[in-house]
């Protein structure tokens, strides 16, 4: 397992995850800088991402959508805050509406990526935090909703089985 450490700070609402890869810093950086590679890991399994706009320069916005197994598109964006290839990247990310425009009143998060190469291996640490406590609360509530939807999805086949 590449993950070597996970730290949570309950006051600052930050989570820091550290991983070690058998690759050099450039190769790890390409996972972020090459949209075709990024698309292969950004979305959760079954939700591949498609990056429509991808520019990692400071102030630039990145636009993407993830496609659900049912074909539904979930749009998102990044706003690049700081970048220092291949060592670091900081961006804000959030949800967007169907036109790809950032949604108002939706929670955002801030991720800081740090990449360091030493002795042929590369360590990547990601500090991920909620932009605000309200955002965290919203995310949790949305997650609960998502959990409900998933639970209901599991009931459907059971009901179908009943009928069959």
């Amino acid at each position: 397992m590449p993950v070597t450490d996970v730290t949570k700070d309950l006051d600052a609402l930050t989570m820091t995850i550290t991983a070690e890869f058998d690759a050099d810093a450039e190769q790890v950086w390409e996972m972020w800088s090459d949209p075709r590679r990024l698309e292969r890991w950004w979305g959760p399994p079954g939700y591949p991402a498609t990056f429509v706009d991808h520019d990692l320069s400071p102030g630039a916005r990145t636009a993407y959508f993830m496609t659900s197994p049912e074909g539904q598109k979930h749009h998102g964006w990044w706003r690049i805050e700081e970048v220092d290839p291949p060592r670091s990247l900081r961006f804000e990310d959030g949800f967007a509406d169907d036109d790809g425009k950032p949604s108002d009143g939706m929670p955002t998060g801030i991720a800081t990526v740090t990449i360091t190469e030493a002795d042929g291996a590369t360590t990547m640490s990601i500090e991920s935090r909620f932009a605000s406590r309200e955002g965290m609360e919203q995310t949790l509530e949305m997650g609960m909703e998502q959990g409900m939807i998933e639970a209901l999805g599991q009931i459907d086949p059971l009901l179908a089985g009943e009928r069959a």
Partner: protein
Amino acid sequence: MVVDRRKRPDREKAADLLFGALADPTRRDIFRRAHEGRLSVSALAREYPISLAAVQKHVDVLERAELVSKHRVGRESIVRAEADALKRAHAALDRLASEWRGRIERIDLILAEDKGDS
């Protein structure tokens, strides 16, 4: 058991705040309600024959004793029992961790594939 003397004044102070906060029947009632779910300061004020400012003061005393926490949601100030707030922060950060863990594992697979190709 070894008592850490440096921590004693802090602990005494925390106990004073805690017992002081719970010495008042209105505050005990607010604390009880906060345990049952989230509520806004303005909704609370409608429950008692006292002013909004007085309710706010009670909430502040409970907050200093770390019994409740206050969050702003839009224009509302929401009060919640603190144990709950901590649990929620844990749950939210755990979700972030599992999301990133998944991503890191996928990155690792792609790196391994890239290596195999070269």
